[in-house]
């Protein structure tokens, strides 16, 4: 059954970002043209940041994955870790869509057959960001938050930079050692699955 989008819930959540603060980068809207510009300055966004305006986005994802085996096979690397910082932000001035790079501090490299992960952190690129106090994010793939513990299925799209495979189907949250899927439309994770158990399932897939 189709459900109408409910901007009220989404926007209310976005208007009051709770929990761990997102240290965002404030992007400047830079004139006309079609180039992608890098952010020119970074400002901390407070824990209870109120956004003056919301831009909600909804994506069609090229591929979604509903089983671990296929999701694993489509990934160059699989990691478990914590969103540690915002590494950078860009604004595509043609589309006015912002992008944010997050540094993920790694606890475990679950799968990395081609040795793409170097050191104990990776940079993960995500659609969305904060532009002049305006929050842009995709509804079913909300921006990472600093301190969020995650298990990510990644693809290295250029040396040292990764995106999550399959949109939100390649992203899992870990809260109090319990793994949950970000979207109900991807891999089903049984209730009360521990991080260790989920990693074992991934490795066995």
């Amino acid at each position, binding site marked *: *059954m*189709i*459900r*109408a*989008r*409910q*901007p*009220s819930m989404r*926007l*209310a959540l976005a*208007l009051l970002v709770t929990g761990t603060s997102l240290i965002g980068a404030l992007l400047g*809207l830079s*004139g*006309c*043209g*079609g180039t992608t510009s890098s952010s020119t300055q970074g400002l901390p966004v407070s824990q209870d940041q109120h956004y003056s*305006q*919301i*831009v*909600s*986005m*909804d*994506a*069609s*994802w*090229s*591929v*979604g*994955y*509903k*089983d671990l085996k*296929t999701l694993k096979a*489509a990934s160059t690397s699989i990691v478990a870790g914590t969103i540690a910082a915002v590494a950078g932000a860009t604004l*595509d*001035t*043609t*589309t*006015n*869509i912002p*992008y944010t790079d997050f540094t993920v501090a790694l606890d475990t490299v679950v799968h990395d057959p081609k040795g793409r992960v170097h050191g104990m952190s990776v940079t993960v*690129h995500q*659609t969305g960001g904060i*532009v*002049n106090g*305006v929050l*842009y994010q*995709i*509804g*079913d793939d909300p921006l990472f938050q600093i301190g969020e513990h995650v298990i990510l299925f990644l693809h290295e*799209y*250029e040396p040292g*930079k990764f*995106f*999550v*495979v*399959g*949109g939100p*189907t390649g992203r899992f949250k870990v809260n109090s050692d319990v793994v949950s899927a970000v979207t*109900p*439309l991807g891999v089903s994770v049984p209730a009360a699955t521990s991080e260790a158990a989920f990693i074992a399932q991934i490795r066995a897939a």
Partner: protein
Amino acid sequence: MTLLVALIVAAPAHNGLLSGISFDGALVKLPTRRRIGSVTKPSCRRCWIASRIGWSSSTTAWGNAVSTWNGSAANYYLTNNQSSLNKVADTYNSSVTWDGNTYMYYLTCSPSCVFSSFGSYLNTYFTENHDPCGNFLTHDCYTDASRKSVAAHELGHVAGLAHTSSCVLMNPYTWGSGGRFTSDCGYINVPKSDDINGVNAQY
């Protein structure tokens, strides 16, 4: 407000015309800032849209998508006006996994949302098959039919529809198990009854 003004100023010149769109001059132009009486109301029942499209295949996809919605039983209509703030376009981005994306600008959401404008994009990295295609680990190669599926899906968002997991146009995945444009789902690129009911339940 500052942002909105900046975006209007930053909008590049239009360089393409949509094809396949029936133009109904009797339609009343949607106010630029349409107040949504309830926050659960969708955004754009009658939208004027403009295009700035690089690929002719994208133009075809958007035109086909507009035609399929306009020809459906949904109380939803889009028509072409190159001066509109609402844009359909394409872009190239190899660092994301979306093949289509729509954003909605709201001026405020307290107590209710005031819709301003939208932009919908096809990502030609996928839709023009720059991303490897044709094996099960990636996806099938895009054609006019699957590009239409992506574009029509995005216009469903413009109408106010959210994602759903069943085999309808608003399934969020083009490919993959259970994706909307797979044999599992019957290669959907037109609004199904559930999509149409979702629109008409609100308008």
